[in-house]
């Protein structure tokens, strides 16, 4: 996995709560058997005026001029500023894959849906929870100043604005450790293979019905 330590990037404010994973990447694009290539279809139904189809050249499709990512000032944005309960709905990891493929490295919101939040960490994408009033402030600043950038530091767990104002954020130690070091967490878990095996052996004795197969 790609490591994440520090990132400075242009902010795109998406002023809408409860953005669900169907909205982030609609189902017709889930038919791919790859992890890459979802970027052109990120927010497909909001971004384009026509109906998106797999294997289509999205560069020729009519854009929705009202959608935030279609505004020239947000071109190249890598920090997505969002509202509460971002990523609700399905467990599709295609949602963080699409955000990543588009070029986002950080999503900041007052709250995230649990599965989406978890999936981000597996892909080097950092979801950051900030208090609602601070998110409000960032929205105001990002909308007011063209070229507004934020600096995110996972080592110090801070988000810093261009004026030097800094907001601290919390992140689980284990997730932070994996992200900072770009660790493959399957490899980390397999370091405990002996303990998994002995748990399993014990359970085979105490709960043998868990190890049965169909008649």
């Amino acid at each position, binding site marked *: 996995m790609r490591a994440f330590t520090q990132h400075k990037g242009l902010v795109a404010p998406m002023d809408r*709560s*409860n953005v*669900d994973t*169907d*909205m982030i990447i609609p*189902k*017709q694009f*889930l*038919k*791919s*058997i*790859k*992890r890459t290539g979802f970027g052109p279809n990120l927010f497909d*139904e909001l971004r384009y005026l026509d*109906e998106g189809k*797999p*294997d289509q050249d999205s560069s020729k499709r009519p854009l929705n001029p009202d959608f935030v990512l279609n505004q020239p000032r947000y071109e190249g944005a890598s920090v997505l500023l969002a*509202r*509460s*309960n971002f990523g*609700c*709905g*399905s*467990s*599709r*990891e295609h949602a*963080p894959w699409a955000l990543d493929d588009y070029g986002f490295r950080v999503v900041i919101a007052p*709250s995230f*849906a*649990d*599965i989406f939040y*978890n*999936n981000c960490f*597996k*892909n080097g994408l950092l979801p950051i929870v900030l208090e609602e009033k601070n998110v409000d402030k960032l929205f105001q600043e990002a909308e007011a100043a063209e070229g507004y950038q934020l600096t995110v530091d996972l080592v110090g767990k801070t988000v810093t604005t261009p004026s030097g104002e800094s907001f601290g954020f919390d992140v*689980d*130690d*284990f*997730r932070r*450790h994996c992200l900072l070091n770009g660790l493959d*967490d*399957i490899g*980390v*878990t*397999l370091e*405990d*293979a002996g*303990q*998994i095996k002995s748990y*399993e052996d014990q*359970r085979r004795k105490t*709960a*043998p*019905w*868990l*190890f*049965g*197969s*169909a*008649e």
Partner: protein
Amino acid sequence: MAGKTLYDKLWDDHLVKQRDDGSALIYIDRQLLHEVTSPQAFEGLRLANRKPWRIDANLATPDHNVPTTDRDKGIDGIVDPVSRIQVETLDKNCDEFGILEFKIKDQRQGIVHVIGPEQGATLPGMTIVCGDSHTSTHGAFGCLAHGIGTSEVEHVLATQCLVQKKMKNMLVKVNGQLGKGVTGKDVVLAVIGKIGTAGGNGHAIEFGGEAIQNLSMEGRMTICNMAIEAGARVGMVAVDGTTIDYVKGRPFSPEGETWDAAVKYWRTLHSDTDAVFDKVVELDGEAILPQVSWGTSPEMVADITGNVPDPEKEQDPIKREGIERALKYMGLQPNQAITDIKLDRVFIGSCTNSRIEDLREAAGVVKGRKVAAGLKQAMVVPGSGLVKAQAEAEGLDKIFIEAGLEWRDPGCSMCLAMNADKLGQGEHCASTSNRNFEGRQGFGGRTHLVSPAMAAAAAVTGHFVDVRELLN
């Protein structure tokens, strides 16, 4: 010391290792696999040269992409070449790694969350995961079950464990008896309407109270299925006689002495009377009416006797904007009566409501009636080949067909429209599925979530109607 909740017990029994940093390794008893969220996980295993940890813990079936017609054609019946590749990839991966798969022509094929319980592959007290958020369904059996992403599917394949942090405990208690025509679906929609789509974030929800205890396993599965729509990855119901009766005699269920030992353990799978929950929500079951969603989020629900809300009356500016946006997308007017919403299509199916009891309820309503003239389509999609066979043995298929509904082959179908079954732009659908997000059932489609009985009532009238008026 306070007693343990059901969630505490399941967590403790599956804890392999508690790490100093607060994370824990949790053992997974069962993984269900389907074609959409598994290909990249198998590919990851291959790239890292890893093997599955425990092959017999996995059970697979294609469900999201499968057509609901011409099943006898098998894979050749999948017209969309991209969908077909995904199903073929699942077949190849399961063959390569030796994982049991109910393939497209197998009568046991169906929606993963229907076939797990049907086969007894879902047993009380298990930890169950699947790359699908509606895995919470299996919590109806007193399981710790939740959806995971594809990286975690790979993690479970490789290690039989997940790295987890313990969630908080939440109790949703539904007191009293449910009224006539009020089902598990109405209960869970009412719960989501009350606590919101983020109400359960960070929590494992246990559903309890008299109304839940009186529900069948099908009703409990419907409720746990939609815990995720309230933001909770996990929904659970305590084990009781209803659970154990359901499990007995299924292909994966234990027998003889092992069965007796299992039942003894399963009987302990309930929250202790002195257990403490971080959050408790209570609802009066008698006050719950048949529900209809009017908006683009499962929390946007109303009683069948109610009206579409008026955004002018909403004080919170973000919520007001949300209501305005939803009404625009749905093509509805503020204060419009729910019963005035006209429908184009009706869909009875999905992992929420495609089990035999759901089909019986719907058939009970349409029996002797006809699909309304204005409707473009009304379809019934059973949750599995075995549900289909059972329904046909009971003559339900004939009731549906005589009433003018289409009787289809099993799969996820129009719940998320990954196969050929979808809504046209602007069409209103009474749907027994779980999500009314924009575009969920087709580009520009308008979904209204309801129970099977309410969907059936809508099918024969062409608009929403209080199903209690049609019941004898």
